[in-house]
């Protein structure tokens, strides 16, 4: 369970570039919640993810994960139980290392304490990696000694997804992780995401600019505007909502239209 209480974050405090990125944001995610997040450009979606993942410390407020206060825990410590995917498929993997080596580094999250610093990848682990890769259905299990840099963006993002979830995280943060992929690859990665999240019952937050996804995926939709969550819908009410309802709701709550260029484009196209 993720519990965020009254967090604030201001960048460049006291300068002309002062940016209040998060203002008094509260959010509680139940175990197994899969919430999608939509919002204008600069609404603070990525900042929220950075705050949860620990890329910076918040100015005030606190963040709790499974009853443990992680507000001032360092990023690499938190990442042991927080999985994260970026929009840029190249960010989550090391291009000059092989698939096996990448997986092995990701696998550290599980047994850093059990595995010695000077141990090598064991046969059992290699077999586990191969079996996990085969679930992606991309033929990567036969290319385990290929450098990741040779893979396509979609393959790399699928691999990152596997790396983030190989050790089941307490929460998975997906920051428009399919936005930079071509439509068919994006659909495939999304399918995989749904499957992995459902199978492992992972609590998940996903930023998207696709209004359909925002309503269809998961069990909860959050709308963000100027550093806060302005609309939170789930259950019965959510199942009846249309994209137009969502846009109207946003206008009502934020006092302005949704100005995310990509959202508008994808809505007009009716994607």
């Amino acid at each position, binding site marked *: 369970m993720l519990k965020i209480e009254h967090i604030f974050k201001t960048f460049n405090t006291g300068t002309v570039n002062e940016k209040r990125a998060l203002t008094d944001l509260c959010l509680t995610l139940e175990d197994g919640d899969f919430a999608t997040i939509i919002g204008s450009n600069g609404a603070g979606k990525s900042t929220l993810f950075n705050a949860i*993942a620990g*890329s910076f410390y918040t100015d005030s407020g606190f963040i709790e994960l499974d009853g443990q206060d992680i507000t001032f825990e*360092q*990023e*690499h*410590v938190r*990442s*042991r139980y927080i*999985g*994260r995917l*970026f929009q840029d498929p190249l*960010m*989550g*993997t*090391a*291009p*000059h*290392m092989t698939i096996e*080596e*990448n997986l*092995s*580094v*990701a696998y*550290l*999250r599980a047994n*850093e304490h059990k*595995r*010695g*610093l*000077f*141990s*090598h*990848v064991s046969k059992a682990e290699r077999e586990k990696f191969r079996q996990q890769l085969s679930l992606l259905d991309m033929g990567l299990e036969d290319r385990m000694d290929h450098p990741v840099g040779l893979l396509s963006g979609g393959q790399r993002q699928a691999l*990152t997804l596997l*790396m*983030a979830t190989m050790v089941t995280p307490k929460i998975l943060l997906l920051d428009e992780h399919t936005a930079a992929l071509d439509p068919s690859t994006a659909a495939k990665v999304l399918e995989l995401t749904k499957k992995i999240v459902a199978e492992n019952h992972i609590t998940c937050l996903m930023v998207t600019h696709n209004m359909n996804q925002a309503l269809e995926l998961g069990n909860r939709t959050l709308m963000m505007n100027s550093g806060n969550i302005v609309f939170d819908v789930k259950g019965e009410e959510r199942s009846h909502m249309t994209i137009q309802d969502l846009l109207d709701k946003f206008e009502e709550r934020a006092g302005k239209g949704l100005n995310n260029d990509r959202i508008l484009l994808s809505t007009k196209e009716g994607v």
Partner: protein
Amino acid sequence: MTGFLTAGIVRTALEVGLIYSLVALSLFISYSILNICDLSTDGCYTLGCAVGAIITIAGHPFLAIPAAMLAGICSGYVTALLQTKFGVESILAGIIVNTGLYTVNLAVMGFSSNVSIFGTDTIFSLFKGLSDSSFWKDWSALILLAVIVVLVCALIKWFLGTTLGLSIRATGDSPAMVRASSINPIFTITVGLCFSNSLTGLAGCLIGQYNKTCDINLGTGMVTIALASLVIGETLCGRGKMIVRILGMVIGSCLYRFIISIALRLNVPTEAFKLVSAVIVAIAIAAPRAKQLIAFKHKQLTAMQERKAMRGGRADA
């Protein structure tokens, strides 16, 4: 061949090349693997030499080796500390440490700019004393160095395959991924720099015992030489398998010494030596790009001729 390059010259080039290859391997770890420009190499090399020389004079040529490596580790630790904990730019951290090491080195050498270890046993003289054959007298130093370098290469290959080694590689390759994988980049950078500088210290110790002298300016320009070897190695051996890359450093380093030996044989005046080194480095770095450029120009020319031929054909028709 024998007239121009005698066996002695080849041997010396190989011996010094092998010692320098340790510095190239050190830069391989910091520069190629960790993606950090560690410019403290010059000072650290001299530090290894000074520490090694002093302990050798005290009568412990073998103890000198771990001591010099330990000194290198300390130097690497300070460099790492500056850039991880205090946010100093990596290049600047190296330069600061390098500057500070000058005084440290002088202090180690008892505030004299030159220490001679003539007349004391070195690992080379002890190794040479194992046999009386003339072959052994000539080649023992090279054999000893080859053994050391092979051991170091094996150690690096093994280390980079361990959990810790993989974490270090990932740190240099994809910082975002590292943070998402519960690896502490501060820890991996520190370990990486300590390891790389221990090799520089080892190289300094070996060159001190090899030349039986240590000079405060010994390390000047070492980073350039090591970078040259590194670039030559990467140009020749590519960026493929780890073991090939590691061996590439050794090959590049030996090759560099050969080029220098040839320059020496051609009677290039000593004053011009640094310039020759710089030119070699520049050529080595520019070579891959030049090769590409020539290939492209060639392609362009062929394409243009083909088009001309086609147009000409149509005009005739």
